[in-house]
């Protein structure tokens, strides 16, 4: 089954990262690279996103589309990266995420799959 992992940062995490020395930060990043390497058989795609300040949101549906600066939801937690994984079930996804060494919040969302035709 395919899921997308949505990695989210919050202010505390950003502050923690900013307070690190270069060497510490390097080690923190290394742990994340190691995690992706260890799970490379399950991760089909992954990508870090640029900062939320770079986001642009477009709201459609009420006449002229409205273009706004920033992410679509103003919250303390902002999505900072995504990964698509292919695993047996939610428990396997949970097992992977439990050992995630990066940002403090991860949402696991199943991809919509078109049901196969009856056999």
């Amino acid at each position, binding site marked *: 089954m395919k899921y997308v992992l949505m990695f989210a940062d919050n202010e505390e995490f950003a502050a923690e990262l900013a307070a690190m020395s270069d060497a510490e930060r390097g080690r923190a990043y290394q742990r994340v690279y190691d995690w992706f390497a260890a799970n490379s058989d399950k991760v089909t795609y992954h990508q870090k996103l640029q900062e939320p300040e770079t986001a642009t949101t477009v709201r459609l549906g009420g006449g002229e589309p409205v273009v706004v600066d920033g992410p679509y939801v103003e919250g303390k937690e902002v999505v900072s990266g995504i990964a698509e994984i292919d695993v*047996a*079930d*939610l*428990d396997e*996804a*949970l*097992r992977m995420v439990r050992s995630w060494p990066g940002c403090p919040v991860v949402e*696991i969302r*199943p991809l919509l799959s078109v049901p196969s035709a*009856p056999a």
Partner: protein
Amino acid sequence: MTTGPAPEADELARVVREHAGRLAAALIHLTGDFGTAEDLVQDAVLAALKHWPEDGIPERPDGWLFTVAKRRGLDLLRREENHRRKLELLTWPPREADDEPDERLRLVFTCCHPALTQEAQIALTLRVVCGLTTAQIARAFLVRESTVAQRITRAKQKITRAGIPYRIPADDELAGRLAQVLAVIYLLFNEGYLATSGAPQSHDLADDAEWLAALLHRLMPAEPEPAGLLALIRLHRARNAARFTPQGHLVRLADQDRSRWDHEAIAAATALLTRAARRRRPGPYQLQAAIVACHAEAARWEDTDWEQILVLYDMLLHFAPSPVTRLHRAIALRYVQGPEPALAEVDALAGQLAQYHLLHATRADLLRDLGRADEARAADRRALDLTTNPAERAVLRERADGGLSRRPR
């Protein structure tokens, strides 16, 4: 096919519970579709509740439920030839290899999956494992039937769509997942035993909780915590006959007629707890059971081994620190070190438990011990404002009015 006179409601519930979960497990195993299989069983249960009160409980209730579910399934799966063919071949009872674990264990773990809300876990467990109907669950929790129905529908959709597996968790995740299952069963027990709402219940949830704990213990005999929870529930229930006056007033532990306790059940539950403790893997349920056992084994209130109870509370706090447990520990502390240190402990918890009636009731007791009668009455009134349970309210009202002589708690 049918025998006997019209069955009582609890007899019906017992028979359904014994078979519905097993049937659901078999059908899920067969079709691989949790939602559909569960619907079929629910239909069969509803049919049973309609026909059995008039016709009597069939000689083979499991076969009866199976036949109804199968007929309905064949109808429903008309377009899914694959499942239909498998269902046609299914006979009852299913042939079980001796070393094959009871399928219901998977059912329990799926229903109590952490990716579901606890409310959904409770509703699903009652419906799928215990065979309760949506209406029965709604009545037991005093919520609208449509609310329960929606909870169950959402949970079943989540199981299917989010890929929640139908299996027993792997060893490295078993401890955490088992704790979740035990929490659901304990919550059910509390709901039934204390009946916070005080409404007359058509279905005894404490009965379901004991049955679930027994099932879990039977299916996981090497795990000490299910045994601990089962002992805890049985120790509480062994005192049932002495808990209320004939008028329905709650009788406090200190005032209960101990000759009316079920001493045989207490001995059996204590033995079960002792066997579990031999595995030397203590946990919160074994410890709580041990505390209740200390009370249950005291011939008189005065004989209560408070020092032992205090030690057990310290251990319990180590496993499961919670302000409510600290409050109970403070009650034990009163009998070991006196009311003053106990009151200091209780006051330290006042911020966290400001809305909890037992905090104020305990404060009232301690203040009375210390001769501070006016403050004690004020605390009793606060406790009264915070509880909705009619039996508990009656006790508190009497004390707040100052009518009752001082009684040890």
